[in-house]
């Protein structure tokens, strides 16, 4: 590996610290991927015979008929490479996390005005485009690196237990390591194209991991859907990059920000770039209208849902907007769009979450909803609040997913023990699990209270900061002065605030509902299965405990001034100030957002009231005891039916976009235009024409010499006539 050349940034204070090894960060998981991937191939591959065209081998036939229904959880034994994979998979992550922490400490030790940029090599030096593979280490990417490697490590450890009996064990860790590699490229990349490499790379890993159990069509479908929907977003990202290159003449973060600041405030160019960037974010971070892939992505193994589809990858959009803060701060209209879409998504997904029965689907819609909050935050220019919520959400949502994974693991084990085939993820088949898995139970309640926004749990701080920021920017900001489709920005911000409150209420309700149905009331799993329900092993509950602790104290990262009594105020604010501070100030017209103490207190009060009310309402209204198991449940009616079926959006997309595209392609373009008009009419048509003329000519040929003589003579006469009479 080449040691980065001495670039002008070589004089950077970090250059002499451990941070110069930043290129090692993504390399570690890549190494893990290579080793695990090789092991995975060695485990399954059986090289074919030299001559493949020889007839089918009967032995091979017999050997594979048995392997037909070896669904992951039914496989009896551990993989033969399980030991070494369990060492390397999480091992590289731990090493990476250690390095990240070391970098973090190094960073705290120096005074950093500019980001630390490490140039690895010239990547695409073409024409005016002088793209290098550079890593940019600054406060923002440091936060992300810590979250990715930290939460990633925990989830890797959890996976060792969760996936231990899966025949694809090495493959799983290979994918997971690859994901971390790309995620680190995403957050460390020093220019938009390199970020895009990570951006698509994580999408690829998401695709591979969602479809991890590819023998079931639904899983493979979900993976494909995720990738394709993400690609719609990526299209936006690409166009945004083209616009940047053509109009700003650069693609690296520093120059883009510098050039963006020179653009006219609220101009068309900045707005267009931002909107296209946001399309990319909407795809990756599952915002309306591209959120549909995320619930389906739950087809993957549950730790994957925790890592990729809750804690890290889906928040990449938030990171991207924070990263492009300068650009966005020049385009208030685009910011309003971001915030409004975020608010609508938060609200919309929360309503769906109210009526889901699959425990992971509830969490999936909850994730979509929380991502909406983050976009509200970065939309209104409260970048720190967005990143703050990103971090706390990573803690409590990873905990929730891993907890649900633990539940599903127990359910599976129970069903497996009695050879019963039922839905291990449906809450109607659970109930009363607190008795069987108390650790999971308590930890998940912590996470639930955190996400609901009960005071002093982590989610309370971050969510409160978001709502407060929205409220504060309704007056005296570039947003309030801008307007969207004629509606003044202030009005829209108040609407978003309302949506945020409503979503908070619903969040509290559906999360309580999930907890009640899963852990409280009588058990509905089945008489035979009940004795087999048990807590997961410590390798799985261990990470849960760590995440539980983080969910509890995560809020202390950024304590608001109002609660200054309980700890240091605004740590994250200060930390991120060099990166996003200027942009945030531009949105708030140069002044820190100012609210009176009373207003602030009132806002906090409202938020607390709403969270408590939601939980109380759920406890009062829902009767876990009255619930019946899934197989006995009756189909819902009316609004319940619409909610349970997610507003029929998937069906709508299918009928409205997917099928018409396929039909038009098949009937009009392929059969009609391609084989019909171009090939049939023009190509084969001209051949047919030539043949027809030839046929007509052949009809003249009678074989009668006499006839030929006549024709000849007529020709002679005509020619002579032409000479004579000209």
């Amino acid at each position: 590996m080449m040691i980065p050349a001495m670039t002008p940034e070589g004089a950077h204070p970090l250059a002499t610290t451990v941070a110069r090894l930043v290129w090692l960060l993504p390399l570690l998981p890549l190494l893990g991927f290579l080793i695990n991937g090789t092991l995975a191939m060695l485990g399954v591959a059986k090289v074919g015979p030299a001559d493949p065209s020889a007839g089918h081998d009967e032995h091979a036939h017999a050997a594979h008929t048995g392997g037909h229904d070896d669904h992951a959880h039914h496989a009896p034994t551990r993989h033969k490479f399980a030991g070494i994979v369990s060492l390397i998979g999480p091992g590289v992550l731990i090493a990476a996390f250690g390095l990240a922490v070391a970098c973090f400490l190094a960073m705290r030790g120096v005074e950093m005005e500019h980001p630390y940029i490490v140039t690895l090599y010239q990547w695409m030096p073409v024409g005016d485009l002088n793209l290098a593979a550079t890593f940019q280490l600054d406060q923002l990417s440091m936060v992300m690196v810590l979250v990715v490697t930290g939460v990633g490590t925990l989830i890797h450890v959890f996976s060792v237990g969760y996936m231990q009996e899966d025949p694809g064990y090495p493959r799983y860790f290979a994918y997971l390591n690859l994901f971390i590699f790309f995620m680190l490229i995403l957050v460390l990349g020093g220019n938009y194209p390199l970020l895009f490499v990570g951006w698509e790379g994580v999408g690829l890993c998401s695709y591979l991991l969602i479809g991890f159990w590819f023998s079931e069509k639904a899983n493979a479908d979900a993976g494909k859907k995720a990738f394709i929907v993400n690609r719609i977003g990526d299209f936006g990202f690409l166009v945004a990059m083209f616009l940047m290159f053509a109009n700003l003449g650069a693609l690296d973060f520093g120059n883009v920000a510098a050039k963006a600041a020179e653009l006219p405030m609220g101009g068309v160019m900045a707005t267009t770039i931002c909107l296209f960037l946001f399309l990319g974010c909407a795809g990756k971070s599952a915002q309306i209208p591209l959120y549909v892939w995320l619930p389906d992505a739950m087809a993957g193994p549950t730790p994957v849902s925790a890592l990729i589809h809750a804690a890290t990858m889906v928040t990449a959009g938030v990171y991207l907007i924070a990263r492009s803060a300068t650009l966005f701060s020049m385009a208030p209209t685009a910011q309003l769009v971001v915030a409004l879409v975020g608010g609508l998504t938060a609200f919309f997904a929360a309503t769906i979450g109210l009526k889901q029965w699959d425990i992971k689907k509830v969490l999936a819609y909850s994730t979509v909803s929380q991502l909406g909050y983050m976009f509200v935050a970065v939309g209104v220019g409260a970048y720190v609040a967005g990143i703050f919520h990103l971090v706390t959400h990573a803690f409590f949502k990873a905990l929730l997913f891993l907890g649900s994974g633990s539940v599903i693991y127990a359910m599976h084990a129970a069903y497996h023990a009695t050879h019963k085939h039922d839905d291990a993820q449906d809450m109607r088949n659970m109930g009363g699990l607190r008795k069987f898995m108390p650790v999971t139970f308590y930890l998940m309640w912590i996470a639930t209270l955190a996400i609901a926004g009960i005071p002093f749990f982590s989610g309370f701080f971050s969510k409160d900061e978001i709502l407060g920021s929205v409220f504060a920017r309704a007056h005296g900001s570039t947003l309030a002065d801008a307007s969207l489709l004629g509606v003044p920005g202030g009005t829209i911000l108040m609407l978003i605030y309302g949506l945020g409150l409503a979503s908070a209420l619903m969040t509290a309700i559906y999360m309580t509902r999930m907890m009640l149905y899963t852990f409280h009331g009588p058990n509905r799993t089945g008489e035979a299965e009940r004795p087999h329900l048990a807590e997961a092993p410590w390798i799985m509950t261990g990470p849960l405990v760590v995440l539980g602790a983080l969910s509890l104290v995560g809020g202390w990262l950024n304590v608001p001034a109002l609660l200054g009594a309980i700890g240091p105020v605004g740590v994250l604010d200060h930390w991120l100030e060099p990166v996003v501070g200027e942009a945030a100030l531009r949105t708030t017209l140069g002044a820190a957002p100012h609210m009176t103490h009373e207003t602030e207190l009132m806002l906090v009060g409202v938020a607390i009231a709403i969270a408590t009310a939601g939980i109380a309402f759920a406890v009062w209204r829902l009767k876990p005891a009255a619930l019946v198991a899934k197989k006995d449940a009756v189909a819902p009616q009316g609004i319940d039916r619409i909610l349970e079926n997610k507003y029929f959006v998937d069906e709508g997309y299918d009928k409205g976009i997917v099928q018409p595209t396929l039909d038009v392609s098949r009937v009009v373009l392929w059969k009609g235009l391609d084989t019909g008009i171009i090939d049939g009419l023009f190509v084969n048509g001209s051949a047919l024409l030539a043949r027809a003329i030839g046929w007509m000519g052949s009809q003249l040929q009678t074989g009668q010499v006499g006839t030929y003589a006549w024709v000849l003579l007529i020709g002679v006469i005509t020619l002579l006539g032409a000479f004579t009479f000209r």
Partner: protein
Amino acid sequence: MTAFLSSINYSAWIVPVLLLLPAFGAVGLLAHARLSAGDAADKRWREARLLALAFFVAEAILSLGLWWSVDPAVAGWQAAVDLPWIPQWGIRFTVGLDGISMTLVLLTTLLMPLVILGSWTSIRSKVHSYYALLMLLTVGMLGVFVSLDLVLFYVMWEIMLVPMYLIIGVWGGERRLYASLKFFIYTMVGSLLMLVAILYLGSEASRVLGSPTFSYDFILNNVRLDPTTTLWLFGAFALAFAVKVPMFPFHTWLPDAHVEAPTAGSVILAAIMLKMGTFGFIRFALPLFPSAAMNPAVRTFMVTLAVIGIVYGALVALVQPDFKKLVAYSSVSHLGFVMLGIFALTVESMQGALMVTINHGVSTGALFLLIGMIYERRHTRMIADYGGIAKVVPIFATILTIVCLSSIGVPGTNGFIGEFLVLVGSYKTQPLATIIAATSVVFAAAYMLWALQRIIYNPMTKPENEGLKDLNWREIGLMVPLLIAILWLGVYPKPLLDKTEPAARRLVESVQTAAARTPARATNGAR
């Protein structure tokens, strides 16, 4: 390396040798066919394929020196040779390389051994003729890339056609006669107008020079035509190249030819022969007729066709039941990117077009090789006949996935670099077209992943697939270089970009300055 090459005077003889070696190989094979007539069929077959492989490996090794000996920064032709051929008509054997043609020559010579290995066991009838034709084809293909005399170029251009016609027609699938005839006539009709244009250019050049000549350099530097003539000549050249590329709507020979051709034929068609068309635009149509190429109407027209090809190819690929056909239509889409890059005429887009050219050769070549491998086992190309085979053939599935991702243009693979450069460069001059073209990232993912899912994922429903055997060492071995190329070009494309950059820059600049020299009436004429 450079010192060693100059010590053996490498660049003085390499190009003729590269052209002659396969020709000798063809003769050698036919001689072997005669000499071994009495031997057992199996023995003859084995010897013939070994002989062919030996020739192509020798060719590949010989050609490797070009990477070092051709200095892209030098403006003139390198490794140039100029011999009289038909002196009465001023036709000369003039050959030479620049950075662009050097990479394409290397692509050809390096791919050919893999092609031979790819059809190592699948071709068993008339093997001698088969390999001899492949060698003849190589002569033609290399000849097109190195020719600097218009007549020589035309001869090489047509030489390619015959072996490919026979390869499809003799060793092809069920509808091989239809496909081969269609391929032949389609391409032939396209190139005849080019012949007329070449003769016209030759006569003009001869008028200027005073003695007959068809020299590319002379025509490039000395022949000045009026705008209307330029437009017509450009049209004649463009038609020939557009058929070969193939641009929408001249693409319908491609799916048939691809589907019916044997594996080697498909690979060569996709990886190299389609590149003749784009290379023709880069080497001939643009520099010789800059005012026509820069004419806004012409450019808009070509870019529109390119964009239609991109989106249309992707959409039609979406609904193909036959995997080879799907890949064929995806080629239409990819080559559309090349055309967009060429006619956007920025250094970035031109470089991107060249990257896509190479990438498409690598990825689509690999795809066709893989299809050939699985076809050899299951004797079907229908996507619906597979499903869930990742369980039984994991190596195949892994390689297929990587190659598909490269074809989609996932970052980290070569496909991304090319598409990104084309788009980012084209946006400067053709913003709307670029945005429409960029939508194909969605469609590309859709058709490729959907097909991938239906082939290697999903439940295994067909009992015939359960006994499938995975790739053997030969097949793995021949895929490895392609996989390395996919990743290397995706992660560190700089060496390749450096090789083509000066030539691409010169091309863009020369077209722009030359077009600026002859303004006015060209635009009026087209309106």
